[in-house]
Structures are given as structure tokens and as C-alpha cells.
């Protein structure tokens, strides 16, 4: 199996499977213990300067916005970050707390490119951008979730993506076929927002699961926020709905409207006006700072944030939700 090409992008987060196994043996209790805490407690306890961190799904869909804001509020810095993002990673970029990026897509979707990303990268504030596709970064987490050092793919090939990633191109030893090998990605911390969880961390998600299953299994620390905290009996009555089992979880945060101004399938729709406010204000560094002052630094927690948004507006979002069936 010859190595035909090696990407020269930095492997921002090197990995060691046996070290990951040891971590999972010694740091992840198999016991059912109450992990309920606030955003502030969870971030203080598990998110640290320089850590390699990621969020799921992305910043307008089932996104851990209350946790993302708390990371900014607590002044965590020099984060190494993976993935795609609309609002949450954009906030972090605007707050100047991102040092390195395993980037797939950071933009505002229908509202265009991200000014915060441009400023952060073009100024050199973000030191490194290593390029991956959405599929590739998910497969990198899947490799870690499987407990193997790499996963092959037929994406990435033939383009400049390989060179600016940390992937390698090899010949498949069975057929001679060229494939890209994606190195496993183990995050230091993952933030995932779900529909419901019990206090131990058993989680259920409605609708698409994005890459929640993979990211949860690929992280050393996992902070889950949930729209609803349910009794464990509810989990036990439908064990086939458990996407994230408790032993993967370090903190469970009760965060109703945790994805706002993004959406939560079947629970609330997204707030176009709220999103456009960020789109407009983030066009300049000053505007972005003003937004952060208004919605993050100026409010001490998620409860204050929701009070500031106001129940009336939240109710409107509930009215906008997709209904089942």
C-alpha cells in the first residue's frame, strides 16, 4: 500500500488510539451519575484555553448557541476549532478566540460570506486553516468513533484539498484503487444540542442527526444541552431512540431555546430577523463587538438572554415550527 501523496496541512489535533482508549477507561464513568449543571458550570469545568473544540449541527440548526455564547462570555481563548458554522463559529471568530481551524464551511448560507471569517483569517489572527469537506470532517470523527486510526474515502482526490489537508492518498492493497485516507479526529471538547436528555446524559434527537452520533463518540469531553430534561424511564421505554448514551456525556445542561436564533426541528423555527441582525452587524469589527456586548457580555446567562429576547418573540418561533406528520 504505497503512499502516493501526503497533505502538508497541519494535523492540528494529533491522535493516539491507545491514549484515547486509556482516557475512555479512566475519565468516563460507567456509573449513572447526575450530570445536570448550568452552561457556566459546564464551560468552566470542561472548556479550557487552547482546547480543540467543535459544535454540532451548525449555527442555525440544532446548534448549542447557549453554550457557544458562554464560551465567549467566559473568555476562553486560542481555541482550535473544527467544522462548519454559521452563527456559533462566526461569534467565536468575531470574539477573537479562535487560533486554528480545521475548516469545512464558515459562512452565512443564503446571507452570503462571513465577514468575521475574512477579518480573522486575512489579518492572520487565525493562524492556520486546514481544509476539509463536510463529508471528510464527519468521517474523521467517524474514524475516531469507530476506534480506528483512519477511514478511506473517494472524496478529496485530485484537488488542492488533499495538499492543504492532513490526508494521504494511497493505493488500496486489495484492488489497487486510489483512495484518500482521513486521519481520525478526537476532539478535546464537543458541544451538542439535543431535543431531550435525562440527567445522566442519555440523549434523543428528532429528525436528522447530522453528525451528533459521530462527534459524541469522538470527544474526550462532551457537553450536551437539551431542550428538555426527561426521566430515565422515558429513555428506557425507547432505548432504540438513544443517539448518545450517558457514558459519553460529561455535562447535561437544560437549555430551552438553546439553538435560538437558530431552529430546532419540531420545536421552533429560526428567527430570520435575529439572524439578519448578526449578518448586518458582523460586517464590521465594531458592529460585531456591539452585537457581542448586547447579546453575550451584557447578559449573564441563558436565562437572561431569553428574557432579553422576550417570550413573545420565542412564541412566534414556536408557531413557525415544522410539525410532524
Amino acid at each position, binding site marked *: 500500500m504505497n503512499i502516493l501523496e501526503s497533505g502538508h496541512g497541519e494535523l492540528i489535533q494529533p491522535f493516539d488510539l491507545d491514549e484515547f482508549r486509556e482516557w475512555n477507561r479512566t475519565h468516563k464513568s460507567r456509573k449513572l451519575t447526575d450530570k445536570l449543571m448550568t452552561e457556566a458550570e459546564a464551560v468552566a469545568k470542561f472548556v479550557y484555553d487552547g482546547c480543540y473544540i467543535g459544535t454540532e449541527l451548525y449555527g442555525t440548526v440544532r446548534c448549542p448557541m447557549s453554550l457557544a455564547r458562554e464560551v465567549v462570555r467566559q473568555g476562553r481563548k486560542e481555541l482550535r476549532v473544527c467544522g462548519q458554522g454559521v452563527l456559533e463559529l462566526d461569534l467565536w471568530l468575531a470574539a477573537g478566540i479562535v487560533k486554528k481551524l480545521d475548516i469545512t464551511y464558515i*459562512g452565512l448560507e443564503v446571507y452570503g460570506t462571513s465577514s468575521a471569517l475574512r477579518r480573522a483569517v486575512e489579518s492572520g489572527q487565525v493562524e492556520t486553516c486546514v481544509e476539509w469537506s463536510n463529508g471528510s470532517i*464527519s468521517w474523521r470523527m467517524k474514524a475516531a468513533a469507530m476506534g480506528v486510526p483512519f477511514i478511506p474515502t473517494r472524496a478529496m482526490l485530485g484537488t488542492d484539498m488533499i495538499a492543504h489537508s492532513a490526508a494521504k492518498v494511497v493505493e488500496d492493497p486489495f484492488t489497487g484503487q486510489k483512495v484518500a485516507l482521513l486521519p481520525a479526529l478526537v476532539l478535546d471538547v464537543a458541544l451538542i444540542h439535543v431535543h431531550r436528555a435525562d440527567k445522566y446524559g442519555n440523549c434523543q434527537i428528532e429528525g436528522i442527526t447530522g453528525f451528533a452520533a*459521530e462527534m459524541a463518540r469522538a470527544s474526550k469531553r462532551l457537553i450536551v444541552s437539551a431542550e428538555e430534561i426527561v426521566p430515565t424511564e422515558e429513555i428506557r421505554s425507547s432505548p432504540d431512540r438513544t443517539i448518545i448514551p450517558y457514558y459519553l456525556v460529561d455535562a447535561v445542561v437544560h437549555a430551552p431555546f438553546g439553538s435560538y436564533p437558530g431552529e430546532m426541528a419540531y420545536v421552533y423555527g429560526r428567527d430570520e430577523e435575529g439572524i439578519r441582525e448578526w449578518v448586518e452587524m458582523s460586517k464590521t469589527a465594531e458592529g460585531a463587538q456591539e452585537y457581542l456586548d448586547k447579546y453575550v457580555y451584557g447578559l449573564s446567562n441563558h436565562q437572561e438572554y431569553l428574557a432579553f429576547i422576550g417570550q413573545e418573540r420565542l412564541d412566534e418561533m414556536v408557531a413557525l415550527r415544522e410539525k410532524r406528520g
Partner: protein
Amino acid sequence: MAEQTYSKTELMICVAARLFEDSSTCFIGTGIPMLAAMLAAKTTAPNLVPVFEFGGLGAILEELPRAVGEARTFHKGLSASGICDTMETAQRGFIDYGFLGGAQIDPYGNLNSVVIGEHDHPKARLPGSGGGNDVGSLCWRTIAIMQHDKRRFVSKVDFVTTPGYLSGPGAREAAGLPRNSGPAYVVSTLALMDYDPGTCRMRLKAVHPGVSVDEVLEATGFELVVADDLSTNPPPSAEELRLLREEIDPEKLYI
């Protein structure tokens, strides 16, 4: 029937919509592809199977989705799974078409959405591949939607993010990309392009109504072959416009 006025965007949506093959699986990205898919489903491709990268498949598109993972992407869907399942479905050859965008495209249909300038010291940092590279690598055929001007239609893109035909015939297969896959069309603000099967180079297939061939060539930063059977794209029909304006985007988010 009186002639109707329509916007460039409406025309692009109609031209793109007409490319959908009925009973095919299509990766749909945010924006124009979503509108085009809805229009196709309501006109020529009633059995279209929309696929959204984060897990939605077979949704009934009653309302316009605004993001690739939101609830409308699996509204009354047949399956709601995750991105790995979806991308692997493409990797196994189950996704027929994918829609793509980018800041730059070259004669072989390679797309750039990473940087303008040098990667490590860019003039402009663009959003990144997103699912683009996966879609361009793994779907059978791709359709790019582009603003048509010389800064975007370039002889060499600054960064090959999403593979088109790479350097030409046989290059995809030599790189390990799936056999017989590759770009099918480009829908631009000026015209519809396909690719010459012999050279894999982009070819002008049909101009938009009121656009001359010279205008297209002028707005293209490389030599664009003109198809022998060059035609003009029919303008949006009254019914297409009605569907777009009344049923698909009544809030005028895009049109």
C-alpha cells in the same frame, strides 16, 4: 399572451429546474438549487427525490427550506439520517445529480470556494468546501450555478476545491474519483453550458433570451467552445413564474 417580465434570477431558476431528470436523486444546496428543485417537482420532475447533505431524503417540498439541515429538508421525508449516511449514499453511486456553486470555475468545471490568492496569505478567504468537494467527487453528475463574469469564469482557479474534469479526459479516473462521473452543466446568469465529451471542456449550449454569443464569450475568461446546435433558452413560462412567485417563494426571499 402578453410577454412577461422576469428577473435574471427567475430565469436561472427556470433554466436550472428544466435540467432535473424525473425520478432522479439530487443533492440540493441552499438557495437557487432549492427553488429550482421545487419548481422542477411542480412541473417536469414530479418524482424527483431531493437529498440534503445533513440527512434529509425524499422530503415533500411544501415550503422553501432556508438551510441545508433545517426541518423542511425532511418534511414528510422518507428518511432522516445524518451526513455520513448521506455522503456514503453518494459514494455508493446512489445520488444522480448534485448542485454546486463557487467563486471561480475553470474550463474543466473545477470550482474554487476556498481562497482568492495564496492559500496561506489569501486576498480573500472564502467559506470553504462545505459539502461541495464531496458532491463534486461522489455524485454521478453535477450542475454548477454561477454569476457569469471574467473574474469567475477563469482559465485557472486559484484553488481547486471541488473537482470538475480536473485536467481533462481521464483525469478524474486517474485521480481515483469514481468512474464515469463528472460535471454535466453550468447555469449562469447569461447562458447554459455543457461539456464537450471529447475534450471535457466547457461548451456554450444555449444563451439566455436577449443575450448574444459574443456577450457570453466576452464575459468568459477562457476560450469557450460554442456547440454546433447552439440554441436559446426559452424564457420562463407564465406558469413557471406563477409557481415561483405564488407557491415557491411568496415571501420573495430569493426572487
